[in-house]
């Protein structure tokens, strides 16, 4: 029996992961579990994830969401995950409380766009992007639990690989996930 308590009779679980308004740091932490990735591959199949490049999420057991909700596409993806995942997990500071992207919440969105795309020195053709393919920005960045119901939260910016592995092994083994003191961080 390995760390996650798998046995041959247990069906393989399906996991989906995505990044909304995040920096992919939490996904990097997932890769940081190093050789445990082999163990994880024995226990689960990956559905939609940057690791598989699958574009839409099918029925899954666990959905890991990194990043907060900053635009209309984030809302769609988040709702798709909630529809298809039995257990939805907010991974990392941005998913848990908005994180760094939410620090724009004090500023007027129009002013933000002007500052970035029109006011910087040296811009050849200052213009706010308005391609119809670009998702509409929300007025404020929101943590995911303010948009859908979330089952578990793993804070950290990012949570360490060790914290993610502890969380996942608990969850996969059917235990209530719990982070010991040294793995519980908001930064």
């Amino acid at each position, binding site marked *: 029996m390995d760390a996650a308590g798998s046995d041959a009779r247990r069906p393989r679980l399906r996991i989906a992961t995505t990044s909304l308004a995040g920096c992919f740091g939490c996904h990097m932490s997932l890769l940081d579990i190093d050789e445990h990735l082999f163990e994880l591959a024995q226990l689960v199949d990956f559905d939609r994830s940057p690791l598989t490049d699958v574009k839409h999420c099918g029925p899954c057991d666990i959905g890991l969401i990194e990043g907060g909700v900053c635009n209309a596409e984030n809302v769609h993806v988040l709702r798709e995950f909630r529809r298809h995942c039995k257990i939805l997990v*907010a991974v990392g*500071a941005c998913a*848990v*409380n*908005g*994180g*760094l992207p*939410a*620090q724009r*919440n*004090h500023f007027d969105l129009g002013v933000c766009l002007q500052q970035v795309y029109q006011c910087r020195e040296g811009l050849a053709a200052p213009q706010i992007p308005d391609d119809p393919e670009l998702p509409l920005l929300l007025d*404020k960045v*929101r*943590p995911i*639990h*303010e948009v859908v119901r*979330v089952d*578990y*939260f*793993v*804070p950290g*910016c990012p949570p360490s690989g060790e914290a993610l592995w502890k969380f996942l092994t608990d969850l996969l083994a059917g235990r209530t996930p*719990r*982070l010991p*003191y*040294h793995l*519980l*961080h*908001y*930064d």
Partner: protein
Amino acid sequence: MSGTFLFDGQPVPFTDGQTILQAARAAGHYIAHLCWHPDFPPHGSCKLCIVKVAGRHVSSCAMPAKEGMEVESNTPEINGERRALLQMLFVEGNHFCPSCEKSGNCQLQALAYDLEMLTPRFNHFFPDRPVDASHPEVLLDFNRCIFCELCVRASRDVDGKNVFALTGRGIHKHLVVNAESGRLADTDFSAADLAANICPVGVILKKRVGFAQPIGARKYDAQPIHVVAMQEDK
């Protein structure tokens, strides 16, 4: 006069005039607190120190110990209520720990770790509270103020300067600086004042010293606040 009361089932001695929190702490039992400080009279605003006495909630920082009272503190129910209070404090301000200079040394964050707060749970207010960077030595980031009034009390009662005050009510409550301009630079505030060194969270910050301690070496990195606080008392 003195006596004994029961704290989570254990006898705790007290002398007359001691509060529940003081006596329990002297006997080695930590009670969570944010607005209480050993050098100041109790303020009773944060309610983190709530305990149950005869089925009723009381603020242990303000309630005198009495002979024979039975106090419940470290129970799942009360810790759950403390966690809810912390969650409210987190969503009522703007607490972005990864970019906060106080992270790792912050009492609010340390209590949240200790009480296993994994989520702020409520909807965020994201209030608008501009910082005051006018003073040459000290920065004020009001986004993180929890209204404990420790800076107000320290400035008024120890520094003799009256630099800070709280104003407004409910969600509109905020910390103000006692100058006509409202700016810290226009007061006689100094980085050597007690008020500059007492904030339990990351509001009153010395300039040019941020992030000096690496992650792992900060106050609450290795041990929870209930252990660190009792070690400091020794």
